[in-house]
Structure formats: structure tokens, C-alpha cells
């Protein structure tokens, strides 16, 4: 971790994205704060509906408005607040300086255009080059992402590719304009494990080669442990813990993080220990409970947890957590079991 420059490349402050639906206001992202440093991989973990994808989509200005609305916040990239830009001007950043790899390579490629056309399109959209130059670049990109038989593959349609190959093509498109930030939203969830390993290794190598920063969104704690340097844990639209990957796994301070770690079966475990699940299910985002959103599932909850949402406090350098009882975990007066 010592090779990371301490320079912040992206800063998100108090971001709130709500959706106005017939059923009520869905607070999908409700006060997210984080920063991304040059060259680092930031992991965002959380379960379905925790707001991790909406955070990413908001950064890229891809939230449909209406029903969505960005209530407040700042997204500071290269000294400018992206939220102040008109959507039409955002394309200067989108796919260029910040690009995204989506979860499902089956649906995020256009089935009626060839792979080559789609890669060239993303190059021509942002660079002042001729079609011929773009074609050469696209060939080079396919080589970088490990697709062989490139000239033939340029003419192939997405349905002729396997899942892993499609994801490689997606990555080629995403890195076409050497972005400084790559957002990967569950890049391997739709893929088999051996292919997942190939894709994640590829992303990691490319990141190091191009010195870009990666935001890795996943629900898989194993992937986080392997690739992330810092981690934000989200629950019901709010970040509940933000720390280095070691602190998250070895010194978690939020009961939800603890619960997540207790819920997974570990391949390397010698004796079979009973899983310690979190009771209940995540709350509905339309009708969030008063106080801490996790309180009803939390075995450490006390009276004040049900009254106010705990503020995020930096308990030790670089380790933020939003829990009233974090201090007790810190000094050991409250056991994590």
C-alpha cells in the first residue's frame, strides 16, 4: 500500500440520491461520503439494495431523472463538482476519464453491432483520431485484455462470445480512453469462478499498468480481501464503516460488518464452525426505521440506537464507523462475539 500517492482523485461528499415512486420516496443513497486515492482499489460492499450501484451510477450521471433526484452532495473530480455540470456536458468525463464496467456482459453490449464497432465507437467519441487509427487502437486493446485471433474477433457479434470474453470486451471498451477512474460494478457476478479469477486478475494488472484507480463494487468479501486496499461497507443507503481492508476484516467496528464476516463460510476453515447469521432481513428503503437503520437486526443495539442515526466518527486514523458502540469495541469493553 506504500506505493499509493496520497493524492485524492475523487471525493464524494454527503451524496443523497432519492427515487420518487408511487409507493413513496426510496432513499437509495442517503449521505455517502468517501474519497478515492490515486492508484488505489476502493471496495464497496453491501447486500442487494444497499445503494452501492446507485452510488456508482450517480457519479457517472446515469440516474434517470425523474423518478430519481440527487438531493444533495458534491462529487469532486479534478477540482470540479460533477453535480454542477449539465448532463449533456458530462459526456466529457463519462467513458473518458471515468468509465464503468457493468455486471452483466450479456445485456450491456449491443447485440446488433460488432465488438469492433463498439470499441471503435468509444474511441471515436472521445479522441480526435481517424477511423483507421481507432481500429489499430482497438486491436491493441483486444490484445491487452487477452483476446486472441483479434482481427476475426473485431468482426464478431456479442452472441458469438462467451461470458468471460464479453466481459473482456467490456473492459477493452472501458479502458479505451485510459480513464483515471474505473468503476467495476459486480464485474464477475455473472461469471463462473475460474473465469471470475481470470477477469479480476486482468483488471488488477491493467490497473497497475495504467496507474488508474478502481472502485470495485461487490457483495463477495473474498474478492474484497484479495483486491481492495480500502473498503466502504454500506447498509440501507448509508455507509456504516470505512477503513483499510485489514481493519475491516481483523478489527471491524460496526456490528453489520461483524455480521457479514460471520455469515460467510470460509473455504480454509479446519473445523466446521456454525455460521453466525444476522437475524432478519434488510429494511425497506421506503419506510426506513427511525434511528440506526441496522438497530432492529443488531444484537448490540441499545436505546439510543433506535432514536438517532449515529454519526460517522473516525475512531482511529482512517477508520470511520457509524455506530454508538464502536468505542466499546475499540477499547475491548464490548466483546465482538
Amino acid at each position: 500500500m506504500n506505493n499509493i500517492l496520497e493524492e485524492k482523485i475523487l471525493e464524494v461528499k454527503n451524496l443523497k440520491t432519492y427515487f420518487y415512486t408511487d409507493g413513496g420516496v426510496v432513499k437509495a443513497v442517503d449521505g455517502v461520503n468517501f474519497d478515492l486515492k490515486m492508484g488505489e482499489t476502493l471496495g464497496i460492499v453491501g447486500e442487494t439494495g444497499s445503494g452501492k450501484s446507485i452510488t456508482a451510477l450517480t457519479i457517472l450521471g446515469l440516474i434517470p431523472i425523474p423518478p430519481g433526484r440527487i438531493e444533495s452532495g458534491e462529487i469532486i473530480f479534478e477540482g470540479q463538482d460533477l453535480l454542477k455540470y449539465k448532463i449533456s456536458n458530462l459526456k466529457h468525463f463519462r467513458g473518458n476519464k471515468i468509465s464503468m464496467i457493468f455486471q452483466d456482459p450479456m445485456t450491456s453490449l449491443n447485440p446488433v453491432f460488432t465488438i469492433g464497432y463498439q470499441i471503435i465507437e468509444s474511441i471515436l467519441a472521445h479522441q480526435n483520431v481517424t477511423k483507421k487509427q481507432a481500429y489499430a487502437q482497438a486491436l491493441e486493446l483486444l490484445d491487452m485484455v487477452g483476446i486472441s485471433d483479434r482481427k476475426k474477433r473485431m468482426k464478431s457479434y456479442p452472441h458469438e462470445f462467451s461470458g468471460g470474453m464479453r466481459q473482456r470486451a467490456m473492459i477493452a471498451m472501458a479502458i479505451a480512453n485510459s480513464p483515471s477512474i474505473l468503476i467495476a460494478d459486480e464485474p464477475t457476478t455473472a461469471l463462473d469462478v475460474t473465469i471470475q479469477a481470470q477477469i479480476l486478475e486482468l483488471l488488477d494488472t491493467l490497473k497497475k499498468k495504467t496507474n488508474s484507480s478502481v472502485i470495485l463494487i461487490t457483495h463477495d468479501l473474498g474478492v474484497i480481501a484479495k483486491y481492495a486496499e480500502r473498503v466502504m461497507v454500506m447498509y440501507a443507503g448509508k455507509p456504516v464503516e470505512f477503513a483499510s481492508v485489514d481493519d475491516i476484516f481483523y478489527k471491524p467496528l460496526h456490528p453489520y460488518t461483524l455480521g457479514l464476516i460471520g455469515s460467510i463460510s470460509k473455504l480454509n476453515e479446519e473445523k466446521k464452525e456454525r455460521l453466525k447469521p444476522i437475524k432478519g432481513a434488510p429494511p425497506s428503503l421506503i419506510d426506513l426505521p427511525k434511528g440506526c437503520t441496522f438497530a432492529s437486526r443488531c444484537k448490540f443495539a441499545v436505546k439510543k440506537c433506535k432514536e438517532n442515526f449515529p454519526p460517522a466518527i473516525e475512531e482511529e486514523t482512517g477508520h470511520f464507523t457509524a455506530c454508538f458502540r464502536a468505542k466499546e469495541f475499540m477499547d475491548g469493553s464490548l466483546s465482538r462475539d
Partner: protein
Amino acid sequence: MPTEENILIKVKNLKKYFNLRTGFIFNKAAGSVKAVDDISFFIKKGETFGLVGESGCGKSTAARLVLRLLQPSAGEIYYKGINILKLKRSQMFKYRREIQIIFQDPYASLSPRMTIGDIVSEPLEIHRVGDRSSRLKRIKETLKIVGLNPEHINRYPHEFSGGQRQRVGIARALVLQPELIICDEPVSALDVSVQAQILNLMVDLQKEFNLTYLFIAHDLSVVKYVSNRIGVMYLGKIVEIAASEDLYKKPLHPYTMGLLSAIPIPDPNLERQRKRIILPGDVPSPINPPTGCRFHPRCPNAQEICSKQEPELKNYTENGNDHFAACFFAGKPI
């Protein structure tokens, strides 16, 4: 060695080929998908046998064959010593009651138009168990066992969360007091915190009712957690069968090694030290599988013989536990 008596189900040389046809009018035969190609395994009473593999390896087809939801192309399935493939429909009915299934997607496997009471009661009605009031009593008991409130008997599936729906699915499988439950990816559609609840429930139920599970999943860490023994499938074949501890500690087949190595362990320090084996390439098509060992195009250890001859499952036991692998160079590190 297991004695014949405590073996609940035994599968021998099971095959399922799906014929492919081409053309709209002339409907010519065009080869076949060898979804399950000559697999054999047994499950002892009270144990959990896990089947793992990537998508398309035939694990779900194997499950459906054991249930006889699909008719095998060849092979034998012995349930309590009786070849159930030879049974007539009416004779099979009796065994259907003893073999149940839990499906993957709790959103799709429950009818949205039926209340959960109706859903859980349906198996009882089909098998004409008890009268109305005794059925109701049994349904309520079963709902309670799986951790649902029996008062919710008149609610519809959409009123429940994913985890609760999967509990309904489990209740439906459990209500007939089966011997064997086939679990086809029972937790892969659920969030991790809910997965753990369901896995714990399944382990508890197994102890309480002495159930036998055939547990199918793609997630090896989940399979390892619940299973006593594990079979690893690749392109329609079982390539390795071992006790779950042995499989993790001493994998013999290169595919198992690659699979184990591909799964990141949620422990950052360990991950930094671990050397990863990345298997190259994609899983080939089961329509036209590679000759010889089906894994050879992706195998770092492959030699000439691997592309010519098909390795058989052989027992490489060391500590008394059976440990089968189908590889000419079993145990050779990659």
C-alpha cells in the same frame, strides 16, 4: 467402506443426452448435448453429498435425473436397493414422496397465486395424507419448524422476503417427511447474511429429522460447509469425489486445484500470501467435448495421453477415506 444397507441412493453410469435438432420443417438430428455423461456416485443415509461445478457442467441435470423429472438416456438409479428407473408411474409415486427438491430461485418456484398454506399443503393433498384438519395442523407445525410464523398461512409469496420464501420452499419439501432432499442451488439467489440463516436451518433440520441431502451448488465454500463428501463435475463428468476436508486439503484433480485456487478467501493476509492458479480458457461446449480427458485443453499438466485416452475414476485413498479422481497425473501439483 459403506455397507449396502446404509446407502440410500446409488447412481450407476448415469447418462443424459439431449438431442439437438436443426431446421424448422425437416427437423434433422444434429448431434446431442452430453449434459451428464456416465456418472456414478452413492449417498449414505444421513449424509450430505455435494455436487459442485461451473454452469453447464450437468449438476442440475443430475439432480433432475435422480428425481426422475428427466428420463436418463442410460444408467441405473438405486433407491434403497431398488432400481427406480424400472418402476412404473404408479409404483414411482410412492418414492416421489420420499425424495423432495428445493429449488434455486425462491422468486420463481412459488406460485404467486397460491397462499403459502396452499403451497405447503399441495404435496399432502397429492399424496392424500390425512384429512383437512390434520393437514392444517401439519402445515402449521412445518412452518414453525422452518422459522415462519404459522399465522402467516394465508399470506401470498410476494409478502415475504427472499429468505422467507426459501423457507417456504423448504417447508414444502419437508412436509411429507422425506428421506432425501435434493437441494439445487438453494442459497445462491440470496444475500450473504440471509444465506447463512438458510444454511444453518438446513443443517439443523438434517440433524433433527435424519435427512439425507444431495446438495448442488457452484459455490465451493458453501458446498464444503454443508457436505460430508463432495463430487466435482466438469463437462458432464465427475472428475473427483472425496470427503470435503480431503478435497480441500489434498485435491488430486487439476480442475479441483484450479477451482479451489480461484475462490478468494475472505482473509486479506492469507490472500496476499496465496499463490493463485489461473486456469486459462473457457469451458468447452458439451455438444462437442474434447477427446480424451475433457479438461485437457485447459490443463497445465496435460500430456499427449490426456488428449487420446479418457482417464477413469480411480481410488487414491490414503487415510481410509475414499478419494476418487479421474486423472492420469492425479495429485501432481500445477
